[in-house]
């Protein structure tokens, strides 16, 4: 039984080693595979903490196993062991050594707390973004550029992105695991700030990390890091006028049933996700991934995903604010087609 | 236990039995918990007191003379409850009952003033749902008022018991902890007077 126990106790440690040595998860999602300096700094602290804690675990496990095996009671053993009151020397050792370990961890922790609290909101070189969370989507406003988008945060590679985060309804938390730790978005005037940057081009997964209602788990977003000239083209393209559907019936349905809440270009309402350039986004509704090579049930072409979403938004994201709009099959097809063609040409 | 004759009571009758000692200690601990309760209410009030929205702000709303009279009533009642406890220690049941009656009457006076005050504030547009300030104000002051009301009912029942059963090792701890309770709500009021009313007057 004890050998069994020994192997079993060791198994978690082995599993840990295997995980550390092998892949550390997806590079666009894992905190163990940081893609930017902020996540890198946090990962450094995590590594330091894990190392110190592994020492503790190894010591405790070693003593445990030794004691359990060495001091088992033999059957029928009636001897009374020596009754020890304690040992000041030992007690001082296991008080002082943990304190030293905590100092080793505490000093960089405090340094890092202040480092990550730097305020870039006044920095002229930083790209400012106001993040507003909604049940269950993300609004990204670039106040200096006068543009707004949703669900996909486009950032220029290498630049510091200064975030001001707030919520339009309940608490949410803004988290891009591979780029930076999270910050809560609070309602009211309680605005939080953070910053991060992505030195490499790529698409990173963002998540909501505070229970916000039934579709909390589906409140994903993307951060897309593009080179600076592409970013400039994107901001310009976003401000260009957008043509409405050419088919008059589709146009009529789109204007009367979609633009009441959503905006394309300079038309429509501002309260819900801006649809300008939705055809070039990575996802529909944050979770229906647009791909020409669908592997999973949440993947499909942009047009298929739009079709699926508009047809029954509640089936995709339960409890979200978008109602099932009364559209004919032709109108639905036309609008899905129109939106999937609503692309922004900014990447080379 | 039921038939103690006057004069046979021990020096501190509230602590003469284990039950009595338990009751007194338990009550002190209960007041410790009450302190945290009011501490939390005060914190909530302090966090929200500037959120007046459309309602009248504190410095326009509060009328200090009225509150000062209420304060005087409650402070005096605390003094009379001390007299009651002293009478208890002298084993003087009649005086004890008399002072408790005075205490209850002063408490009733305080409560009436508070009810009038609330009524007046609601007419001024400072209702329970007006703003975060008003909600936290009524909750804090109302919790205190409810404690006063409960104390009045409790001490009134106690007066009846003392009159009927006399001062015994069973009734003495009850009278003693009632005195503790009354002091406690008096102390809380001193803080309310300072934090809510005086600080509210400072613009």
């Amino acid at each position, binding site marked *: 039984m004890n050998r069994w126990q020994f192997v079993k106790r060791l198994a978690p440690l082995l599993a840990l080693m295997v995980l550390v040595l092998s892949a550390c998860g997806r590079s666009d999602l894992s905190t163990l595979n940081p893609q930017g300096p902020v996540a890198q700094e946090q990962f450094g602290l995590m590594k330091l903490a894990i190392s110190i804690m592994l020492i503790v675990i190894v010591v405790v496990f070693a003593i445990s196993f030794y*004691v359990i095996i060495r001091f088992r009671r033999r059957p029928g053993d009636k001897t009374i062991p020596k009754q020890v009151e304690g040992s000041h020397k030992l*007690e001082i050792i296991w008080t002082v050594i943990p304190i030293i370990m905590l100092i080793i*961890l505490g000093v960089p922790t405090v340094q890092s*707390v202040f480092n990550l609290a730097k305020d870039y909101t006044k920095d002229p070189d930083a790209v400012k973004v106001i993040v507003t969370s909604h049940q269950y989507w993300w609004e990204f406003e670039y106040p200096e550029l006068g543009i707004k988008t949703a669900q996909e945060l486009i950032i220029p590679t290498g630049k510091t992105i200064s975030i001001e985060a707030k919520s339009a309804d309940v608490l949410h938390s803004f988290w891009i695991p591979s780029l*930076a730790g999270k910050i809560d978005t*609070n309602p009211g005037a309680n605005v939080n700030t953070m910053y991060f940057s992505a030195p490499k081009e790529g698409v990173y997964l963002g998540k909501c990390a505070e229970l916000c209602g039934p579709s909390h788990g589906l409140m994903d977003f993307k951060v897309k890091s593009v080179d600076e000239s592409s970013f400039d083209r994107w901001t310009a393209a976003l401000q260009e006028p957008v043509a409405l559907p050419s088919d008059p019936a589709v146009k009529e349905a789109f204007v009367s049933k979609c633009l009441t809440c959503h905006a394309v270009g300079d038309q429509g309402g501002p309260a819900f996700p801006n649809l300008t350039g939705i055809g070039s986004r990575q996802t529909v509704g944050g979770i229906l991934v647009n791909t020409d090579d669908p592997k999973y049930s949440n993947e499909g072409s942009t047009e298929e995903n739009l079709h699926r979403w508009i047809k029954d938004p509640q089936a995709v994201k339960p409890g979200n604010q978008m109602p099932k709009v009364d559209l004919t099959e032709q109108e639905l097809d036309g609008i899905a087609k129109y939106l999937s063609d609503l692309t922004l040409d900014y990447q080379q | 236990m039921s038939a103690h004759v006057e004069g046979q009571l021990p020096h501190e009758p509230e602590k003469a039995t284990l039950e009595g000692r338990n009751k007194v*200690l338990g009550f002190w601990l209960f007041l410790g918990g009450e302190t945290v309760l009011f501490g939390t209410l005060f914190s909530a009030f302090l966090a929200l007191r500037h*959120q007046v929205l459309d309602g009248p702000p504190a410095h326009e709303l509060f009328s200090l003379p009225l509150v000062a009279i209420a304060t005087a009533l409650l402070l005096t009642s605390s003094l009379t409850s001390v007299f009651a406890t002293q009478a208890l220690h002298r084993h003087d049941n009649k005086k004890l009952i008399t002072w408790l009656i005075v205490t209850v009457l002063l408490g009733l006076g305080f409560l009436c003033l508070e009810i009038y005050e609330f009524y007046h504030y609601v007419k001024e547009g400072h209702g329970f749902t007006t703003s975060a300030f008003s909600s936290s104000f009524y909750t804090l002051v109302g919790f205190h008022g409810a404690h006063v009301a409960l104390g009045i009912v409790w001490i009134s029942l106690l007066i009846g018991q003392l009159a009927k059963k006399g001062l015994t090792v069973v009734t003495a701890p009850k009278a003693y902890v009632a005195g503790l309770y009354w002091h406690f709500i008096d102390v809380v009021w001193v803080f309310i007077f300072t934090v809510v009313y005086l600080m509210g007057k400072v613009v």
Partner: protein
Amino acid sequence: MAHGHAVKRHTGLMDWLTTVDHKKIGILYLIAGGFFFLVGGLEALLIRIQLWKPLNDFVGADTYNELLTMHGTTMIFLAAMPMLFALMNAIVPLQIGARDVAFPFVNALGFWTFFFGAVLLNVSWFAGSAPEAGWTAYAPLAGTTYSPGHGMDYYVIGLQIAGIGTLIGGINFLVTIINMRAPGMTFMRMPMFTWASFITSALILFAFPALTVGLAALMFDRIFDANFFDPSGGGNSVLWEHIFWIFGHPEVYILILPAFGVISDVISTFSRKRLFGYSSMVFATILIGFLGFMVWAHHMFTTGLGPIANSLFSIATMLIAVPTGIKIFNWLFTMWGGSIKFTTANLFAVGFIPTFVMGGVTGVMLAAAPADFQYHDSYFVVAHFHYVIVGGLILGIFSGLHYWWPKMFGRMLNETIGKLTFWTFFIGFHMTFFVQHFLGLLGMPRRIWTYLDGLGFNEMNLISTIGAILMGFGTIFFLLNVTITAFKPKNAVNDPWEDGRTLEWTISSPPPEYNFQQTPLVRGYDAFWKEKMEGKKGMTPAEPIGSIHMPSPSILPFFMSLGLFITGFGLLYSDGTWGSVGGIDTGYIIGAAGLLVTFTCMILRSLYDDHGFHIEPEDQHDGGVKA
């Protein structure tokens, strides 16, 4: 004093409804807590079934949030707390050589308020909507705008009523331990479980009133349209987080400290050795309790409190590792040089140590605020707190139950089934929660209804679900053991483990209703062990045999709590659901009727003195000398 004071002795159900005997109340707590442990466990299994594969729709998103909320709330308030109270009630008076607790009537009241609060909370499942905003009930999600059903009303009112029971229970144990120790039982001779119960009770006393206020404020927001936490009315959602965690963090120490106490007693007994470093253990327990109040904002690192607050709370939190480390090493060195017997109780205790260390080290990792920005609200946190709560507290409770079962019920649990319970539960536990650390680090947030495919979460979630099922089997084995044992003869001796060190093992199993025929004289730490080592069979009595005074049973606690239940129910539906009578909402009328019942019972209790009754020496035959 009339000795033959006629007191009606009840039997059957009426006996359980009216009992004020701490041992019976302990059993009531155990039955109720055990029942809710099963309910919470069932909710956990449904959660794990929902998560076993990506994009699963076994339960709907709304139902999932109800399940996770009720799982957390049930396990913390309705399962863990009462099971601890069960052990405290059953054992603490025995360990200090007392005949009862300080306030037997209040003890019963505490149980019944807890019970009716718990029932009210769970009625929500049958009333259309269960609470859905998480056990933390963060505003504004917990407000009426975003949780319009009655679910969160059940949460605020049910917990409020249950919380009253816990609070008065805490005061009761404090007074009991301070005032009712046997002669010679100084504070520094008290068994560790009693010490832990003492500190836990102090934490309850100072933590629960904050919850009372928080719940009252949230209730005012929801039912009377107050504006505490609603930003549109000037309220502040962060205020709720502060109030909740000022209560909530001490609460986790309230839970874990008694488990520490159980482990200390069990390890010492089954190593046949005095607890190593007893005084530093006491000191560490007090320090943990004290620091427990200083660290609440480490649950709020991402709320945006600023770098100064985050640094201070980081450091304060890390400091807790020091007294906890002292405890771990003291346990290890209690076993060192001992003669360790691996009974089921001790298996749970020994299994606790490395498991709890794993939960503890992740706690220190979480204390580093910048790294916590990554861990916070991810599955890493889920893994952490299940390691300390299940791996700590639940293993501790299982250990304590196996250890004290003969003392509580007079029957020994079956050791073979016990070991089966341990191994299935223990392996299942590690399978369930170890992988969750990595799920969190790989980017899986907690409290999510489902997750997308292809993110690398699938395999570990499957492992976790299988582990949860194993834990379910472990629990079933325990129930099986209890059932089988219930049909065995009641033949446990005074000191069934033969190595008992403390006073509870000097009296019969189960003890007579007055516990000690003669109050024992305590001559040192490990009072019974000391006598045994000097060749004596039992304790030296501190008093002659005489008439023993007992409190009368009473039905009033039951009705007082029932009144509160009715009040809560009325308040819940004071929104016009049931119409109105004479212009007053029927809900309020029902609520007032409930309060009337409660207050009438209180007044009756105050006006009619309880003289109790006496057990004369000639009737004291079922104690102390059996078997």
